């Protein structure tokens, strides 16, 4: 709390807030390749399709990658993609047709709305935002099922899945941003 006040005070003194937040110079990212976006979205969807059984605590990998690209490339990955993949998920899981589609659409909207704010925070705080978004999607899906007339004693496992998903966020962030962090010029003496 004290640190936060010092930061705000620093900002009021005329220093740019980004410099206060992050003392290191911010790296300018290279443009992302659309093929990479599609490959990661598809890969995450395939991870969801793996036969996990009734393990409800497994995080929803596709939702996580979707939030990532919504936050970082909101103009390239939007609600349409979320909706279509949601329908595919519905058929795979034998859920109501449109249930995951609705949840992913809401998730995508939330991520697009918050994308500037989320990028402002360090990764740990970003994960809290992401957890909130994933929970919102879970609740939307649960609300649909309750409205249709289902009930479940295991609904809280879904909350665990959101928390686990959020815990993966920092790792995911560094993994998916790695291709954009490559240096512009190839340096043969550099190991990476």
């Amino acid at each position, binding site marked *: 709390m004290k640190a936060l006040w010092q930061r705000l005070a620093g900002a009021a003194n005329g220093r740019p807030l980004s410099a206060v937040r992050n003392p290191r110079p911010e790296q300018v990212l290279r443009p992302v390749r659309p093929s990479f976006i599609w490959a990661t979205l598809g890969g995450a969807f395939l991870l969801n399709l793996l036969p996990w059984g009734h393990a409800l605590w*497994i995080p929803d990998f596709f939702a996580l990658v979707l939030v990532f690209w919504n936050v970082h490339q909101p103009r390239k990955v939007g*609600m349409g993609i979320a909706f279509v993949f949601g329908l595919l998920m519905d*058929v795979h899981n034998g*859920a*109501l*047709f449109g249930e995951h589609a609705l949840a992913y659409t809401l998730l995508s*909207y939330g991520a697009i709305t918050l994308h500037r704010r989320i990028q402002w925070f360090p990764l740990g705080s970003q994960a809290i935002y992401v957890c909130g978004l994933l929970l919102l999607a879970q609740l939307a899906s*649960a609300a649909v099922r309750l409205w249709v*007339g289902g009930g479940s004693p295991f609904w809280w496992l879904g909350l665990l899945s959101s928390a686990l998903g959020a815990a993966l966020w920092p790792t995911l962030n560094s993994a998916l941003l790695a291709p954009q962090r490559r240096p512009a010029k190839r340096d043969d003496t550099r190991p990476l």
Partner: protein
Amino acid sequence: MEYGPPPLFNQGVSARARLAFFSLVAAVLIIIDAQVNALDAIRNGVEILLYPVQRVLLWPRDLALDIGAHFTTVASLSVENERLRRNAVEQAQQVQEAAQLRIENDQLRALAGVRQRLSVPAQVVVALYESRDAFSRKVVIDRGSRDGMRAGGPVLDEAGVVGQVTRVFPLTSEVTLLTDKEQSLPVQIVRNGLRAVAFGGQEAATLELRFLPANADIENGDSVVTSGLDGVYPPGLPVATVLHVERDIKDQFARVVLRPVAGASRSRMLLVLLVEPPPLPPAADAAHAPANVRGDRAAPKAGRR
């Protein structure tokens, strides 16, 4: 960060408009799917597209299982072999008895003028995966409408009833397990013939008998079989054993918790009985709905109440 010029004017449709559009479409789809089975054609199409991907993604798990099976020791194999041989001998005797009893039963039924009991054709299927859904218990099997599967068929394993085929795709089918909260089937207690309806239970992997009076004659360990009253499940299939009975003075009904007998072995081979869907009772609103539409809709819910 992009290097292209920022689009100042051409931002496309606003995010809120998109949200409204897609949410509306999703809501309409949900309502249609919850009320009528009109979206089955689209669902079938999507399932056919997904099917090869799903099958390929089953390989890693199957490979792991195969490797695990490869390292099973000779000792455990010989134990299993011994057990299976003993089972075979025991069952041979039972089969002979059953054949004799069937003939005797047929003769008695003919004498008494009762309708003959028909034998039901069956098909062996393999369970592919269990769906990951907090609100239902479903298993996807590897046979679909192309192989003669039909919604409503009871699904058994070697111990007893597992569930019921509730949705049929061209290449796969969905089986709803008995432990699903929305699944129910008519049963009877072997010891005294008391009839009841079993529903999916509150706790994981349990069933419960509802609407039995608090003084009903049920004891722990009673075995429960299908009663066949619904015309879907053949009578006498083992379903569950009574785990415990709670009789509260204040409550009107007894709380009876059952443990299903099937599914204990985690076997992936299942048996689907290809029963004819039972004839529907004459509906009061038959004049409003064409008969064939009602028949199509009612078939998957034949075992549900």
